[in-house]
């Protein structure tokens, strides 16, 4: 494992390959990050040497698996500065984490007249769970607008805050536009109305040091695969006092202390919310991803990515016909754009043909697209393993696209 960001690209096996005859330029980290060998190997080693079901076994393998799984929980707790390991609930991803809060925290307390507040910037995973629970309860979904730069209008957001709002759910960083929301300030305002705040941290975790107590929010949801860990893993962090009062989300093994047909006693936190056999191998891999990120240092990663992002924006602006979508003051590692009137989908194919992987389409953020009168954009997103050569390749590839569609 390397400690130097400039060298760390070699830690990622997937980046050592050629695509269409040229070495892969991966600019799709916002969709899913590649994994360092340390993560891949931790998963494989667990499966080769230490696998068994967790929590209920007295034999050696079961004990080892439990220690590794619970050890990952400790790593995650420290990584986001949660006050207690019981507040770290493993889920299958951000999406499940948000649905859990919508169903277990909100559904029992919502009724007609109540509101859930989100923004136009959100990913579908931070929209649809709220639409579902509003439909189920008769509550209303209200949405704070964004401006032409892709920033949430704070005045409008604050104006929507009231006693009727039972939850504010807001992204830390927009996956479509890269906008970084001023979460701490927003939380302070929400506090004045006693509105609990869920932060969708799927795009926050990979790019900056996250301190959930510092942010002041009540729930923070994120996915392993966006932060260089395995798919099928995620975390819901929640304040213990809130989690304690919530009914379980799913029923099954491990989430109970005692089952009888008359009376079932739920287990303590975090187990109350972890029904069934968890993704043991995945969670252990996620712990290894945290180790990897900490060995580099989140501050260094942020600085590296900030530098690269500025370089990318400059370069893109120098390409004739490029229109940037998402020009907020505070941005992280993601840039959407259009090139002439080339459809993003065509652009994606042409770039892929030159070894450059970008994402195209609505990025699971259709309302953002509608706001800009588009059906989709091309999006280049950065990870800690990218460098300025990658950006240069992107620009060359864009020039070729213009030639073909000239």
């Amino acid at each position, binding site marked *: 494992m390397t400690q130097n960001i400039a060298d760390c690209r070699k830690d990622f096996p997937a980046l050592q390959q050629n695509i269409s*005859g040229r070495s892969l330029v991966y600019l799709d980290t916002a969709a899913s990050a590649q994994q360092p060998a340390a993560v891949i190997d931790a998963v494989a080693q667990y499966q080769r040497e230490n696998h068994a079901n967790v929590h209920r076994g007295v034999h050696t393998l079961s004990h080892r698996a439990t220690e590794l799984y619970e050890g990952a929980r400790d790593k995650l707790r420290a990584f986001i500065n949660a006050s207690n390991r019981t507040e770290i609930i493993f889920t299958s991803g951000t999406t499940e984490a948000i649905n859990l809060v919508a169903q277990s925290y909100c559904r029992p307390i919502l009724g007609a007249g109540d509101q859930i507040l989100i923004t136009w910037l959100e990913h579908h995973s931070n929209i649809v769970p709220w639409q579902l629970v509003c439909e189920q309860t008769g509550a209303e979904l209200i949405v704070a607008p964004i401006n032409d730069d892709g920033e949430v209008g704070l005045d409008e957001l604050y104006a929507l805050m009231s006693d009727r709002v039972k939850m504010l759910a807001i992204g830390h960083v927009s996956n479509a536009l890269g906008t970084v929301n001023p979460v701490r300030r927003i939380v302070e305002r929400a506090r004045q109305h006693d509105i609990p705040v869920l932060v969708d941290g799927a795009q926050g975790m990979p790019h900056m040091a996250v301190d959930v107590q510092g942010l002041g929010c009540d729930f923070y949801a994120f996915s392993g695969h966006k932060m260089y860990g395995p798919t099928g893993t995620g975390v819901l962090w929640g304040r213990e006092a809130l989690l304690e009062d919530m009914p379980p989300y799913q029923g099954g093994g491990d989430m109970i202390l005692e089952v009888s047909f008359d009376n079932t006693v739920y287990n303590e936190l975090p187990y109350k919310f972890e029904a069934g056999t968890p993704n043991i191998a995945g969670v252990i891999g996620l712990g290894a991803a945290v180790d990897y990120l900490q060995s580099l240092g989140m501050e260094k990663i942020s600085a590296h990515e900030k530098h690269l992002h500025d370089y990318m924006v400059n370069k893109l602006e120098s390409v004739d016909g490029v229109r940037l979508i998402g020009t907020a003051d505070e941005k992280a590692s993601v840039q959407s754009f259009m090139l002439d009137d080339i459809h993003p*989908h065509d652009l994606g194919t042409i770039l892929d043909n030159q070894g450059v992987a970008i994402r195209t389409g609505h990025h699971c953020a259709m309302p953002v697209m509608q706001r800009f009168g588009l059906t989709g954009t091309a999006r280049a997103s950065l990870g800690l393993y990218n460098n300025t050569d990658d950006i240069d390749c992107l620009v060359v590839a864009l020039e070729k696209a213009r030639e073909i*569609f000239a």
Partner: protein
Amino acid sequence: MNYTLAKDELQDLYRELILDHARTPRNFRRLANATHTATGINALCGDKLHLYLVVDANDRVVETSFEGSGCAISMASASLLTETISDMSVADANACFETVTRHLTRPPNGDGEATEFTFEKLRAFDGVRKYPSRVKCATLAWHALHAALNHSNSPATTE
């Protein structure tokens, strides 16, 4: 580095006929008197197109048009579809749907393709078959046609 190959492949995908129909789609309008309509949604990119048909009393497609937005492949495909099926019987149009989608989803250089496929203009899309994620763009309008002729209510997709 093998840029020439890549570029040739791209030119095979974006042939002149496709670029031409994408730039200037034919029959691009709403038909107020449509007897059959359908919407095609490409879940991959979120694009939508609406197909309009006028079928007369003899079960003949007398007019076809479309509206919507999409990539060059899907726009060109829709545009060429409107030209291809104009004046066909409903049965022929359905058969055409079968032939075209089968042709496009067959791997390149598969068996017996030369003999079977008689829609010469649509060979412009042969390059698409190397890009499985783009095959859906090329077949979207055809799936919408199938839905329109068979009175399906939910939007057609290519999943």
